[in-house]
């Protein structure tokens, strides 16, 4: 399974803090986004940062995920 986490305003709009998506070979984070975005359009309208396994994704390059990977779709940060 792929664990998808939500925080802050994105979590509020999704109504959940965690979702699990079935794993399959070759699955990339963009595929997970493409599955979830139509289900939670208001939440994904806020998303501007994505992290995979705690590391910020800086380009659209397609890197297959490992089973058990953690993805976080995040809005702009507002700490401090």
């Amino acid at each position: 399974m792929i664990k998808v986490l939500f925080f802050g305003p994105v979590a509020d709009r999704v109504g959940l803090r965690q979702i699990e998506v079935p794993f399959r070979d070759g699955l990339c984070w963009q595929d997970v986004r493409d599955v979830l975005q139509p289900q939670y359009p208001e939440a994904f309208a806020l998303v501007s940062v994505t992290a995979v396994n705690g590391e910020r994704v800086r380009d659209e390059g397609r890197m297959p995920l490992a089973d058990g990977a953690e993805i976080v779709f995040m809005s702009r940060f507002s700490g401090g």
Partner: protein
Amino acid sequence: MSDAVRLQLEDFSQDEEVCALRASSQRMGGIATFLGCARDFSEGRDVCEIGFDAYRPMALAELQKLRAEAIERFALLDARIVHRLGTVRAGDNIVFIAAGAEHRAPALEACRWMIDELKERVPIWKKEITPTGESWVTPHP
């Protein structure tokens, strides 16, 4: 001694953080600090409390990277960053940053750089709680 980079629910002591910074080197000639506090107003509304949410493992890792980069970039002798999570009341402390260097200029520049970078890079979100409702803060440039 407490870690130089922390995310915590409880308040912190500026004096203890500065003491810990000073204890790391006697070559320190300048220490600059930044204290971020919870305001009791925002955009014309009273604010009673501020709630913080964070992607904690990444937030801590980013803060640690940020500190290491600041030490390298500004030739600091040491630096400390503490950010509170959970809910704080108006007037409470939120974040403390301290930079120690041989001279004042790099300490001041590093302190400013660290808080600016923190706001851009560290996955923490702030929610203002007012008498009439709650709203997530939209980051300012």
